[in-house]
């Protein structure tokens, strides 16, 4: 078993764990953070599968922008909730 395969397995397992945590975590912020991390790992996955274009896009859009949008929503919700 060469290195690539081992990396693949590690990435896969990590992704699944993160996905599970993202769904099941009690805190919404944590959930979003797990999602972001998952997205970063997916970037690794894309690179492993020789799709650099997708990897770049996913890195910028998926883990960057989407996470920020989630966080902004949560922030504004918290503010409304505090009022």
């Amino acid at each position, binding site marked *: 078993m060469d290195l690539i395969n081992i990396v693949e397995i590690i990435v896969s397992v990590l992704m699944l764990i993160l*996905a*599970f945590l993202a*769904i099941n975590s009690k805190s919404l912020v944590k959930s979003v953070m797990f999602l972001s991390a998952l997205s970063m790992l997916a970037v690794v996955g894309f690179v492993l599968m020789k799709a650099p274009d*997708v990897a770049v896009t996913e890195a910028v859009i998926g883990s960057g922008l*989407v996470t920020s949008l*989630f966080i902004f*929503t949560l922030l504004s919700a918290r503010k409304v909730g505090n009022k």
Partner: protein
Amino acid sequence: MLQYAAIAMLMLGLYGLLTQRNIIKIIVSINILEIGLNLFIVSVGYVEGGIAPILTSDFNNNGLVFVDPLPSALVLTAIVIGVGTTALGLALAKNIYQKYGTFEIDEMGEE
């Protein structure tokens, strides 16, 4: 392996949709489902030992074994569409929060 992980992520996305009743969590689940889907799409075009579908000075002719470029192209589209729906979903979530003061569907009551 990554293909199985992709399918598993799809399933986890469905699992999330099935069990979660928090709007943010539902959107997170949808995102997980989409990431899984994107991974699966790319995995369909993967060729063992193939190279990334870009001609460079190192890999400089079309006789080489490339991985399938078409799924990558499709995934690009799919990712952007995913962002669109996510942004919309979050905007709706914000609206819902303004209306009901909660993200939990169960606490909103039947309309």
